[in-house]
């Protein structure tokens, strides 16, 4: 466990010093701070727009940070040959993968917390502190959504080049956000067996990132959601299961890879 934590710690340090990650973070922070200026888009419902824009920016920036960071977590170590030093020590390969993942999600957590804090202040300023407090559910769901994305990028990184991995991760993320589309493809009327089959594969095989998009409830807090707490717990459970699946496969492949 010490080895995992040490790898995670180093991963966080390294990731936070990467310019591209900081660039996305900085860009997101600027957009969040400036978001009140966009209230002209919805003058009568400024907070609706503010919350929607802020949550969207956090999600989008987190997605890019996740992918850009995730695709290089393991390949960078191989390219720099630092992996040999690590694996020559009493560190199992699964510990290495786990450490990288843990470092990745901790980096994500710090980023989301930082962006969330700034966003919290903006919403409290334009609305009320109570409305700002409502945002926490959104941050939690974005964190778990991004945790799956980090594990996906790590999974692809053990057998794809970073360039291909970038597009693969992005593509799977976009398809995964269309959960309602894949579900309707699977269950909709007037669909052929083939369409239904493709829908089912996409819906159950690919990670459903759309599950975690709960912004609408936060933007419109007056909306009553049945079993809201259960939904969040189910989503967290889903994220943990899916991350476990991806990481185990990544470990299996990485274990057989010549490094």
């Amino acid at each position: 466990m010490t080895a995992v934590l040490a790898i995670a710690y180093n991963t966080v340090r390294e990731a936070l010093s990467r310019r591209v990650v900081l660039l996305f973070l900085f860009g997101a922070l600027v957009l969040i701070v400036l978001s009140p200026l966009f209230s002209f888009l919805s003058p009568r419902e400024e907070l609706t727009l503010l919350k929607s824009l802020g949550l969207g920016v956090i999600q989008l920036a987190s997605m890019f940070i996740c992918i850009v960071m995730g695709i290089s977590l393991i390949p960078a170590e191989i390219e720099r040959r630092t992996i040999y030093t690590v694996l020559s020590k009493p560190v199992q390969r699964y510990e290495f993968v786990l450490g990288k993942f843990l470092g990745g999600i901790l980096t994500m957590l710090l980023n989301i917390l930082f962006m969330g804090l700034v966003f919290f202040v903006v919403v409290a300023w334009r609305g009320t502190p109570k409305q700002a407090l409502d945002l926490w559910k959104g941050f939690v769901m974005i964190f778990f959504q991004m945790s799956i994305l980090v594990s996906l990028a790590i999974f692809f990184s053990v057998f794809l080049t970073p360039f291909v991995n970038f597009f693969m991760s992005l593509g799977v993320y976009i398809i995964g956000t269309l959960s309602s589309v894949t579900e309707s493809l699977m269950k909709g009327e007037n669909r052929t067996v083939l369409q239904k089959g493709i829908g089912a594969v996409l819906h159950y095989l690919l990670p459903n990132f759309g599950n975690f998009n709960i912004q609408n409830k936060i933007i419109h807090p007056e909306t009553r959601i049945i079993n809201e707490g259960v939904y969040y717990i189910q989503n967290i459970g889903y994220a943990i299961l899916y991350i476990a699946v991806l990481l185990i496969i990544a470990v299996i492949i990485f274990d057989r890879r010549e490094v």
Partner: protein
Amino acid sequence: MRRTPLILAVLVLWALSAVLQTAIDPHRKQFEPKVQGLFGKMTGLPTEYIFGTMLGFREVVAGALWVRADSFFHEGNYDAILPIIRLVTWLDPHNLDVYSTGAWHIGYNFTDTEQRSDRRYLSAALKLLEEGVENNPDVYDIYFEMGWMWYDKIKQAHNAVQWFQKAYDFPDRPDEYSPGIPPARRHMLAHAWEKAGLIDQTLLTWQDILQKHEQYAKAHPKEFMAQVNVDVAKHNYALTELRQYNRYLKQPPDIQPPIDVKFDVKVRVVEPKIIEVSGTVDLGNYFDPQMQKMDFRPGRVDVVLRDEGYKSSILPTDEKEAGEVWRQKVFTFDVPDVTIMQEQIAIIKGKFKRKIDMSKDPMMYSFKAPRYVVTVRFNPLYAPPQTQDRIGWRGEGLTDKRYLRVDEVTTVDKDGKRYTVPVRRVRKHLLLTREQLLSGKGEATDYPVQE
């Protein structure tokens, strides 16, 4: 590392995630747009809107589209607004502004060159509000908007009552960020009961409102409007009670004996698609001579022209057989290709007269039917209070030898309880032909309607 147990673990975990996904799916719909296959329906939108939607900016895209709709409205490009309203409510079914303002656009703002709204769109406005209620049952707003549409636009307070009641059931909203109903908006329920002709219910409602306002004022002693609301409710309660006494209870009541309004109507076609409606509703010299000098207008008559055979209960024609043909099952902008014109004419010194031009808007007045029925009526329920002081809320103080009709107006409250009152109105139906309307010559003949 042994692979087999790991592969087995992957399969088990993946199966568990699929099971969990099945449980998540029905819940997820509560957070999503209500329409399946929405992205397919967004064809035609600029790419940035579609990408924005896919990347988590659904509500931002909805807001941007809504601003676009607003600019179209100011440009007078109404046709462009309609699909945007549809898309925005799909993208963000909890955006209350789109339902309320959208329904207002559809119901009030699609007008002809003389600012008469296109009544064919009322059904679409009502359906949009119905959708708004379905998607937002936990806020008072859309219930209230629905009530307002019935009360103000359609002028059928008996249909507004149940919606205002549903809005009324919400707790008081102390500030704009809290859920609940702004206290002053409760007054609309009492006004609706009154315009439905149900005065006992009106008084009971004012009593209840007063009690609620007093409690609120006690809890918010520093809020200026809280005390104003108490004063308004007290005033309105006392005024309604006084009016009830003067109009019905004192001996002899102010509304007796009934006055003969000598109702009559003439409709002439003066130019192609231009008609002149004139007539008499002699409400007598019942008001103060000073007010007479001030050109006081004791009310308005409603005028409706529509295709013969087109009957709709949201037109002020009061035909018993007028059905629900207007009601949309699914929200659509496709309106029936019929000609409907609705107007009001002020009564001045017992007479009314007005030219109504339908020549400039062929989309609204297509005149495809061979014959048209024109109905003119005077409705005491919506008459000004000074007029009601003489004729009563329900027209008990008016009569007419030829055109008096006693309609049973039924209010169904939110619990399904029915209140039926007789309302005495004067009403006349006339007939015009397409040839007359297009040639610009001719006079409408009496149209016998079994009432």
